[in-house]
């Protein structure tokens, strides 16, 4: 049996597929700081026979939490002489342009723990000054006195030649076996010393935490089952526990990414290859684009970066996701000049929306959805007091605009939708994609509620609300392959490419990935995918172009060039036929292909009338109040089309369909929505 568990802020989800192919889910509370307890609890609660678990896939927020809560260990940094302050100088940028009190991101290693050694390579990776290990001895003594627990090593140009870093790591480990060491060449093989330093320092900072956690989980699991255990990574694939302990930074965004991956897998099953994956949770909404069945994986990731903060670069492979502070718990408020805003502040789960009756006093999107009849008070765990919600929304939002409570509630929903639409446009239209070519897969607690309306605005015709949509991320984990991505800086003008050299480079990257799989005991068949990061000479930003697995020759160069011109024109509106093209990076994805469960056919007979739970008034934009049928998702007969307005309810989610839209359930239990957008225009 294949089991996936996903630790979220509030709940630890478990998903597995039973012998009939049915997806089963369970939830239990997340248990900080001993997260493994929650995992064991959810396994126990699910009632599965633990000894039958063959494969166990795990996603966790342990790493991202340790970083955002600054709960990593005391970390030191060793750099090339003259460059210990690179971490603090960073890139010198100030995104909050007009704020003279702007505060730069605080370095994760203070200056007195940043040490320098004599060693130097040039920009070709040649040694100019040998590594001075005597200095390392002194540094080790000092850092021992400071009771440092982890050390990051970053030397200039090590992305070309990691020898000095490797030797430094070996030397430290021989002198001081207890300390956790991360060298930059292990984390990233790309140029730009600040980005590499930031990434390596963060990896070191969380390495002891992740090791302890994974070890504990491993020990507990061993008692239960002889399972093979995997960790979900940010690149949309899994890795072994051993590998995850070395590179914990690679699991930074495991949860959100799993849902995107799940969308891609589901899309393949039902014949949709161009997908906008859309996930709304309690505090944020996330979206990501899948084209021709492929997620976009890049190493341009930052944490804590937004329009006002520079953030910290993390050069590890992460699926491109745009995230905004808009979820079910987002608070609606009026700014000082009278504009209605929703989010990014969230009521969270404590106290939560007013609806929870746990002391929440600020109106949220969830409260607005209740007041307009979109959500039913019956589906809440607590008794919901609609009168209180109405009073608060009237006072805080309605009165300032002389509007009724329900008009104000609709305003909150519209503004929240507008915010989310901006994020959806960012990944689609603004990148040169035509939304009419895409289907939307919507999931998470709030995804199904807003998807149909947003898809229509965006110009997407088809929306899919997958089975188990509230725990779809965990389902995505069930379907993952083992995956490694390696991005290596490699600079060559396309027309001057040395075919032998680049072929060697590809082989060397692939051999390295293969060796990692082998040393982790991976037996699955391995598939390699190659990409080049390419640009016009003089440009900075690159376009990722998929390239064949073959030996390089003139013909491949021509194909790559044409594909690049096309993609550049699509993304940036123009192509430069006469300009030189330059490769700057090689990207290899290695997939260890795992046998996965198949989707079960859950065809249902019955009538639509029997599926109706109730008929209640719901407030829709441009219509006002209208008596609306509420269907039970469990009872919806397969392939029978219903026209909106209507609502479909399930455990922990609702789907809202406006007038002019329609919906049916497919044989797998997915809800398929026609948003009313014409796609042949």
């Amino acid at each position, binding site marked *: 049996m294949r089991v996936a568990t996903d630790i979220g802020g509030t709940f630890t989800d478990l998903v597995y597929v039973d012998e009939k192919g049915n997806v089963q889910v369970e939830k239990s509370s997340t248990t900080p700081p001993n997260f493994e307890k929650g995992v064991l609890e959810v396994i126990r609660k699910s009632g599965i026979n633990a000894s039958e678990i063959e494969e166990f896939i795990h996603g966790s927020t342990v790493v991202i939490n340790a970083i955002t809560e600054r709960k990593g260990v005391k970390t030191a940094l060793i750099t090339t002489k*003259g*460059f*210990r*302050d*690179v971490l*603090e*100088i960073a*890139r*010198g*940028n*100030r*995104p909050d*342009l*007009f*704020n*003279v*009190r*702007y*505060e*730069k991101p605080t370095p994760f290693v203070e*200056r*007195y723990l940043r040490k320098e050694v004599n060693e130097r390579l*040039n*920009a*070709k990776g040649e040694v100019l000054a040998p590594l001075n290990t005597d200095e390392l001895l002194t540094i080790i003594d000092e850092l021992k006195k400071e009771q440092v627990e982890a050390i990051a090593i970053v030397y*200039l*140009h090590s*992305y070309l030649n990691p020898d000095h870093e490797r030797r430094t790591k070996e030397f430290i480990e021989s002198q001081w076996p207890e300390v956790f060491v991360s060298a930059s060449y292990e984390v990233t093989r790309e*140029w*730009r*010393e*600040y*980005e590499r330093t930031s990434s390596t320092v963060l990896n070191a900072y969380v390495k002891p935490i992740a090791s302890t956690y994974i070890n504990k989980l491993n020990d507990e699991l061993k008692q239960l089952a002889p399972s093979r255990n995997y960790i979900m990574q940010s690149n949309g694939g899994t890795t072994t526990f051993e590998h995850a302990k070395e590179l914990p930074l690679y699991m930074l965004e495991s949860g959100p990414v799993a849902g995107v991956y799940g969308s891609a897998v589901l899309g393949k099953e039902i014949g949709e290859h161009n997908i906008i994956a859309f996930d709304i949770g309690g505090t944020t909404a996330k979206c990501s684009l899948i084209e021709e069945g492929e997620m976009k994986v890049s190493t341009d990731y930052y944490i804590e970066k937004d329009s*006002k903060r520079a953030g910290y670069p993390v050069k590890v492979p992460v699926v491109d996701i745009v995230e905004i502070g808009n979820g079910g718990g987002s608070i609606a408020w009026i700014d*000082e*000049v*009278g*504009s*209605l805003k929703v989010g990014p502040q969230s009521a969270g789960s404590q106290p939560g929306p007013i609806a929870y009756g746990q002391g929440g006093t600020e109106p949220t999107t969830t409260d607005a959805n209740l007041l307009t009849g979109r959500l039913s008070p019956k589906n809440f765990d607590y008794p919901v007091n609609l009168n209180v919600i109405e009073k608060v929304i009237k006072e805080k939002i309605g009165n300032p*605009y002389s509007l009724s409570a329900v008009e104000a509630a*609709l*305003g909150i929903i*519209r*503004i929240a939708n*507008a915010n989310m639409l*901006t994020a959806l446009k960012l990944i689609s239209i*603004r990148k040169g994609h035509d939304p009419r070519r895409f289907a939307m897969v919507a999931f998470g607690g709030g995804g199904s509620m807003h998807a149909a309306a947003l898809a229509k605005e965006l110009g997407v015709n088809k929306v899919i609300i997958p089975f188990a949509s509230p725990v779809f991320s965990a389902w995505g984990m069930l379907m993952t392959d083992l995956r490694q991505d390696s991005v290596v800086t490699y*600079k060559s003008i396309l027309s001057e490419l040395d075919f032998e050299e680049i072929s060697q480079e590809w082989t060397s990257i692939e051999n390295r990935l293969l060796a990692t799989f082998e040393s982790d005991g991976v037996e699955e068949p391995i598939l390699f995918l190659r990409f080049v990061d390419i640009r*016009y000479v*003089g*440009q*900075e*930003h690159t376009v990722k172009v998929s390239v064949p697995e073959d030996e390089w020759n003139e013909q491949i160069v021509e194909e790559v060039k044409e594909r690049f011109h096309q993609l550049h024109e699509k*993304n*940036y*509106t*123009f192509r*430069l036929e006469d*300009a030189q093209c330059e490769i700057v990076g090689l990207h290899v994805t290695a997939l260890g292909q795992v046998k996965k469960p198949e989707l079960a056919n859950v065809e249902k007979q019955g009538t639509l009338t029997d599926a109706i739970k109730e008929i209640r008034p719901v407030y829709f*934009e441009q219509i006002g109040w209208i008596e609306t049928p509420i269907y039970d998702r469990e009872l919806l007969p397969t392939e029978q089309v219903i026209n909106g307005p209507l609502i479909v309810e399930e455990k922990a989610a609702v789907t809202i369909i406006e007038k002019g839209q329609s919906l049916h359930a497919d044989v797998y239990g997915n809800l398929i929505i026609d948003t009313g957008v014409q796609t042949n225009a």
Partner: protein
Amino acid sequence: MHERISQDPFTLEIVKDTLLSIGDEMFYTLARTSMSPIIYEVLDFACGLTDNKGQLLTQGNGVAGFIGTLSYMVKDVLYRYFGEGDINPGDIFIINDPYGGGGTHLSDVGLVMPIFHDHELIGFSANKAHWTEVGGKDIGSFTNDSTDIYQEGLQFPCIKIVDGGKENKALVEMIKSNVRFPELSIGDMRAQIAALKIGEKRFNELYDKYSKETVSATIELLLDQGEKMARNSILNLPNGVYTATNFIDGDGLGNGPFPIQVKVTITDDQFICDFRGSHPQVPGPVNGSYTTLVTDVRTVFLAITNPSQDVNDGVFRPLEVIVDKGSIFSAERPAPVSNYWESGSSGGDLVWQALAPILPTQLTAGHFLSVCSVTLAGKHHDTDDDFLIVEPSVGGWGAGSGQDGARGQFCIGDGETYNIPVEVAEARYGVMVDSYRLRCDGKGAGEFIGGSGVIRSYRALTDAQMATVTYGRHLYAPWGVNGGEEGSPNEFSIIKNDGEMDGPYGMYARYPLNEGDIIELRTGTGGGYGSPFKRDASKVQHDVKNGYFSILDAEEKFGVLLNPKTLELVGETKERLQVREAGEL
């Protein structure tokens, strides 16, 4: 039904947000399509939309230094062509005139595109970007020893580069023949045009989706909200007249220093900055135009009123900037203006200096201020190709109440500007970077300490390289506030291959470097805030541990006595105790 929905406050809000995001989208388009590091790394450009009268609606910025320029550019287009009926769909105007039309220096080239909807002029899409090359006497075009505008490059006096959708080939050929890196300049121009077209397209979509009335109502709302927010902030400032005086180091030709002054008058609804009495325009290129001054004053105005708000022309309605004709802040043709930011940022800094003591929660002590630009040209050691570095430098910022100054950050006139990574520089240019580190010079002491400046050392790897360095604030250090110590000035020195030292200098045109020579660039540490005696002893101890101050500094400046071996706290000086006791009484 349609009417009710189109005029409700939430629709206006949604249209407003869409409008604002257009400026950002234009901005990212240009950043991602440009071919010049000065644009895609330094983000030395801005993009925006105006209404059909040239009022700024939204602007995407990479640097603070363009916040006054776009609307002046559009207004110049209107002034010259509207009366003639010569603004037509598909036109694009090119303009870099420093003395009018939103100009700064010739390197900053503006493009303006009218936007039509149903044959009606509804607004303008505009941007301005620093071209790596516009010709002139020196490589990289901007120079620090020009004596008139004609030495500084090509002048584009608001003319059509695209006429009714047709590119003016003759003009493009003229540009190609008159700049040193034509592929960069023309590439940047095309990227700018791509961004303008995105703005045009999105603005039109907005009109298509919502009615003309709704968009017009939104524009009015946007400008009024901006004004309302600014006026609210001004109401909360203490009314009064505040003054400051300072100096601009010199003009690069050996003249100077030049005294400058401001009188800031704050009333309930006005914010007036009167620069009259400042030095007349000077022979060297540190002069700025009136637009430049307004831009820099607007930046400080925003820092004071509300740094996080969306910027449009409504915000600046309460602001007035007064200046003498032909001053160093309002130069007239043909005064050289290549290093315009030296006067402009000094003007903004004067307002900042005048108000910092009374606005300790909005402002900080003085910072290194100058763009600190460096151009280095020569041959690459491996390829023998020409290379050209054009970069600003990071430096130290001033401390404020409750906050130490930032270490190693671009100056106020820059912003979302990125330094060039050492690994990239060493691969691309004929140099080695010997170090890139904080300049911990013990300056800027205070209850809150000024941020350290930065040292960056380039070693030439080939003969006959040429460095042009423009470090302002070299003679006058960043000022402290409310008892905080001043910071340190910007400077650079040369260490020749044979060990001979030369310097320090502030400005230098075309310093020759040969293989093995090192140019060490040192930017200033920011000013401190409050008496150093008030700084927590444990913080001082930590500063020493981190190397920001020496043990001697701890004693002499902060009155904190530390054990030189263990850095343990062993006592406090009498002076420190007296000040602290007095403070507590």
